């Protein structure tokens, strides 16, 4: 990773022409071939950039970045270099997301009772011909219960579960399959639509499921 802080003018030509007048900027040249021009304002987004594959040609006071396959070109005219450093970043570790749907699915698969009293898991990722529903369970009376899991459940999640149930209920044995929408947070509109369609909504707390936090004390199991 090469980081250059320089006073420069940047001209882009290609699908359109654009000029960044001379100012102090950060030029970021990454090992994967991407080049970004940052200012100290404007948020996370570069003022201009070139995605790989691209060719970087450097001469005194000038860096030219060209796309290999078309006419896109960044022409950077440098008048003053304040800093020019290169760092070996090593192997990049992949982003690890916490609290995603997969975590919730794993925890609820291990304890399906959070989705409804007495539920027991039949299978994760139960296949339907339009995609898998997250959990398929049986209730204490052996009735089928399909559970769709979201981190934040919106109206789209209700629609998705409704579509799955339509397909599942085509099987006469599962014609009475119930639906449960389980999420860390359920949007009010989603809740209204789910109730109108006879789907149950369950809000779960990942920290409680993981045993990191005790559930709230209640007078009775509601």
């Amino acid at each position, binding site marked *: 990773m090469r980081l250059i802080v320089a006073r420069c003018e940047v001209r882009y030509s290609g699908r359109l022409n654009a000029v960044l007048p001379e100012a102090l900027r950060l030029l970021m040249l990454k090992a994967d071939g991407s080049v970004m021009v940052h200012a100290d304002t404007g948020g996370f987004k570069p003022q201009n950039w070139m995605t790989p594959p691209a060719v970087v040609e450097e001469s005194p006071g000038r860096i030219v970045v060209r796309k290999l396959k078309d006419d896109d070109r960044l022409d950077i005219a440098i008048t003053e270099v304040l800093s020019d450093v290169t760092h070996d970043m090593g192997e990049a570790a992949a982003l690890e997301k916490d609290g995603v749907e997969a975590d919730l699915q794993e925890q609820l698969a291990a304890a399906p009772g959070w989705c409804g009293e007495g539920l027991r898991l039949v299978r994760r990722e139960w296949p339907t011909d339009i995609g898998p529903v997250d959990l398929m369970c049986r209730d204490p009376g052996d009735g089928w219960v399909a559970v769709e899991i979201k981190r934040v459940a919106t109206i789209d999640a209700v629609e998705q579960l409704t579509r799955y149930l339509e397909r599942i209920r085509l099987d006469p044995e599962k014609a009475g399959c119930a639906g449960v929408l389980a999420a860390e947070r359920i949007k009010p509109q989603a*809740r209204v639509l789910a*109730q109108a369609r006879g789907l*149950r*909504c*369950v*809000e779960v707390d990942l920290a409680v499921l993981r045993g990191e936090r*005790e559930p*709230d*004390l*209640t*007078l*009775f199991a*509601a």
Partner: protein
Amino acid sequence: MKLATSKADLLAQLGTVSRVASTRSAVQALSGVQIIAREGAVELRATDMEVGLRVPLAAEVEREGTVVLPARLTLEVVRSLPGDRATLELRPGQGDVELVAGSATFHLRTLRAEDFPPFPEPGDGDASVTVPAAAFVETVGMVARSASRDETRPILTGVLVSASGTQLRMVATDSYRLSVKETRLETPLAGPLEANVPARALQELARIATATEADTLSVTVRDNQVVFAVDGIVLSSRLIDGQFPNYGQLLPDSYEHELRLAGGELTEVVRRMSLLALKNAPLRLRFAEGELTVSAQTPDVGEATESLPVPFTGEPFEIGFNPDFLRDGLETVESRDLVFKLISPIRPGLIEAADDSGFLYLIMPIRLNV
């Protein structure tokens, strides 16, 4: 339809009935108020399909008819009218109502009257029970706050109302606290009564009964509906299906500590300390020999502590409560003495009015990590 009425009456009755008009229904007519003008009687109606309200309006009817007008807008318009009198006239050709008061004229487009649902009639062959309004209102006021607002658990959004003989009892719980109020009536009721009524309907009824200063109200319970009538106003509500929790089983048989306290004093301390129990922070009650220390702490905000003398003996212990829930219970007891019964930091505590007025408030603690 054409009628003339006093602006003050129209405003008062519209203000009452508009409260139950729906604010978010897909059926536009439900956001409206229906005006029914018949010979010698005008009635305003509104409903959100859960609660329905019928309110009489004193008016001179020149031409009978029925219209539905947008409730909130009509209320705002009437509130702003000049003069003392107002006339409303349906103009079928224009699909609007002409509202004239003083020098002001409004034309308000009507909503589809066909979409407005029919209302149940009070009586209609069902047996009604007449209840003293003041006792009913007081009982509602003491328990309704404990009903849940979580629509995913509809049974808990109701208040279990039961009455027989000279006893009226109401129970509400959201699973974190439970309120029970038993009120002794001076005269026996004509018949028994039991229904799980949405708390919102009861709170609306209490508001109306208080405003009208009526002595009595009548209650008619049907299969899935309850109809209240008070001073010519009829409030109907669907009943909540399902088994209400067996609250009797929730009340512990015995307690480790029973403290008789001056309710007003503790309430004031809890109110003050709650100011710094924000962002779900618990209110901490630390009991030690002869002293109760109430404290609260919210990270990045601050902390507060206050002590008061209490007749506590035994091993010190600390218990945490949701500040709002604890305050609700204490405020319901008001300034009367109370008995605070405790078992342990993770078992429910009971607040009881010490004057034998029949009020119980069971509250679950919050776990304290430190």
